[in-house]
């Protein structure tokens, strides 16, 4: 998450909004965001339906697997990576996508 915060100015350049999603409650996320200085939206999804939707809900466990997805302006998921975010890979992909979408 700190890496995303570090790259916000670059996401702006590629017209991209980052959103974090977790099963933690709002109070936990508020405390965590304040402690780490995170300014982008963190979504609390305690019931976990988003995890089922994005296939990151491991059985009955009360947490999501770590996964990063990039969704384009048509709503199509264009990028999926599991585990810790690879920030350079994300930026390189956004640059490519931004170039594609800028083409007529």
């Amino acid at each position, binding site marked *: *998450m*700190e*890496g*995303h*915060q*570090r790259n*916000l*100015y*670059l*996401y702006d350049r*590629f*017209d*991209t*909004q*980052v*959103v*974090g*999603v*977790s*099963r*933690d409650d709002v109070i*936990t*996320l508020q405390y*965590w965001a304040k*402690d780490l*200085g995170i300014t982008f939206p963190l979504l609390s999804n305690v019931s976990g339906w*988003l*995890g089922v939707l*994005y296939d*990151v809900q491991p059985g009955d466990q009360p*947490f*999501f*697997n*770590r*996964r*990063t*997805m*990039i*969704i*384009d*302006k048509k709503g199509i998921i264009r990028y999926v990576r599991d*585990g*810790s*975010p*690879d*920030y*350079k890979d*994300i*930026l*390189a992909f*956004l*640059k490519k*996508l*931004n170039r594609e*979408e800028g083409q007529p």
Partner: protein
Amino acid sequence: MKTMFIISCFLVVVSLGSVCSAHETAATDNAAQTVPALKPGDKGTAIYDGEYEFMPPPSPWELIRGGEGSDFVFGFYRKDPGKLQLESTFFAYSDEPYGYSKDIEQRADEFLKRFFWSSHVKMKVVDRKKTTVLGAEGLVLVLEGKDAIKGTKVRSKVILGKRGDRVVAFYINQWRASDSKFDQAAFDTFDRFAGSFRFLKKSFYETL
């Protein structure tokens, strides 16, 4: 309205701990694919991965590779003599130091919140001054901490500088038994490393 979205799924409670273990795995995987080379440069310098040139430490310092996902690019480790196993010194270069601000003073404060977080040692800043790093504005911090229960102490020096518009860092940590002396020679070696450091090409971010 932005045209693209990044959705990042995570869990707060274990994320700090899991980041560390996941990063170690990533660093190992990367190392198995391509191992960045350390080659000799001119006038006694060394070149790491064709990108970073610096004065290397003398033997017996051992190269430690970090890489993508790690909190440092590379560093050097030395096991020091002493009664405790942890008596050692490690210094490194990091192109993604803790924190996120592009302002060095603000980044230093963010960095200090995370630095030594996992060791549970309360670090005290004993010196903080502006300086020139990599030919531009920079900041030097000297920190010390003690663990009364384990009977250990640690001294660190952190140098924050700029590469393009992003903050980079050099840092050294030296662990000792509480009643042992710190070795200033290792800090001098670190200063030569950081003072001689230069980039041979533009960073990923400068070419993005």
